[in-house]
């Protein structure tokens, strides 16, 4: 417990500071969103665009949980907790895509004939 007055005021200061952190972050995120939109119109290789898009949304994702959701200032345990969910959720998504992307999973049937 940090009951003492000095700590309290330091905390208050920290809060003041966070106002600017939040606003600046929001600006950066807005800019990244703009870049995302831009990049899809760039004459670049597909894989590069996909990588860029993924990277940018990952940056945004991490920034939001780290700053807005103040994981940065919270107990590390919360980060671990969320990351477990993220890894299992994301891993499952990825595995499902791999499984369905495999040759054996290419759909066959009247609904798919034209592409077959």
């Amino acid at each position, binding site marked *: 417990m940090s009951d003492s007055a000095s700590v309290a005021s330091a905390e208050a200061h920290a809060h003041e500071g966070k106002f600017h952190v939040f606003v600046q972050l929001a600006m950066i995120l807005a800019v990244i969103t703009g870049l995302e939109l831009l990049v899809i119109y760039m004459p670049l290789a597909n894989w590069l665009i996909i990588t860029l898009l993924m990277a940018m949304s990952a940056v945004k994702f991490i920034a939001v949980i780290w700053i807005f959701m103040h994981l940065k200032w919270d107990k590390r345990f919360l980060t671990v907790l969320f990351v477990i969910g993220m890894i299992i959720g994301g891993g499952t998504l990825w595995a499902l895509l791999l499984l369905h992307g495999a040759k*054996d*999973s*290419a*759909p*066959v*049937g009247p*609904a*798919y004939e034209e592409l077959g």
Partner: protein
Amino acid sequence: MRSSVLTEQPRRRFWQMLLVALIPLLSGGWLSGPQSTFDTKGPVAETQLEVFYVTLWVTMIIFAIVGSVLAYTTWKFKARNAADEHAEPPPQGHGNPLVELSLIVASILALVVIAVPTLKAIWYTYDVPEDQMDMAYEVNAIGYQWWFKFEYPTEMTPQPFGGEAPLVSANELVIPAGRPVRVNLRTVDVIHSFWVPKLAGKVDMIPNRGNHLWLQADEPGYFWGQCAEFCGESHAVMRFRVIALAEDDFANWLENQKLPARTVEAAEDAEILAAMPDYGTFEVNQAGWSEEFDADPMGNWEAWQEIPAEGEEDPALIAAGRRAFVENRCAGCHMVRGHEGMGNIGPDLTRIGSRTTVAAGLLENTPENLYRWITEPDRVKPGNYMYHSRIVTPKGMVTMPGYTTRDPATGERAPSPGDIEVTPEEGHALVAYLKSLK
């Protein structure tokens, strides 16, 4: 033993079976049925069995070791009396990393022993081996609720509406022996699975998916198969047979199959001569197999192919049957290539007379059983779509006028307008007609 014995002497039967049950493995009787996975007749099933044996041995050995230690521990450290129980507690030890580690390593090694043959077999059983690909024979198996359609994509036959289409058959798949067969698995409704235990493990037939399996019967033979994925009300009785023939026999069989349906001509004024036995009423879910057939299935199959000699058939009855086939709207659902049958909702009946089973491998194709099926399909196969013809609307399934239903209370037929009602006379005629389709 015919199962009719069951209804006659349920008691004796019960004790008999109990006795048999108590003589387990000794006779090997628990593992030698027509769908035994141990009695393998082809390389795919063989490979799968070998993998099973590896897993069996490894786990049995581990079980023996771990089990003995566990049994010994329990016996050795058991408190034998109250004094023992209240004795000073034993040393409060917390574990031994070295023991843990070595056991982990041992487990991993045991798993490697299983994994190596498993991986090899996964690749081997997946598809026809590269070097045999060109001699592989291809067939399509298509699942329907609750029967199988088989197509021979390489064997074209002329169609009633013109053009050519692959040869079609149902519920009995005839394949060449000694040759890999690649089966393309499709379904028109829900998921089914194609399983002939003695030849190969199962692979599912999944909508919008292009599955396949391969199998090979080393010798000619007659094999039992079964749908092995729950597919609705009558999943249990969605069965089929596979008949493997020597190369020549197979070629002959194909030749015959490609011809239009056999026609028995009757003179204008011919009279029905044959007696029409009274089959009485049938039990629900009554057995439809016989020991005589099972004693030599392959021989019986061959006998079924024979075209009856002149005089053994009753042409007039057959002609009546052919008319009844049209009048009762059978022709709308069933194909009899060359005759009036034009439907493709139900199994192709062009050669139904030479198939050993009806109702998807459920009943032996005797006149009695055939009669039973076409007069009272509901008593044979619950929910089947010959009895209830169906249309599927967005709101669910609607049953159309079909076979007449029975009043559940009285057991009497209660026809509603438009229903098919096969009278005993028509029934016998239909049986004769269908039997003539060889």
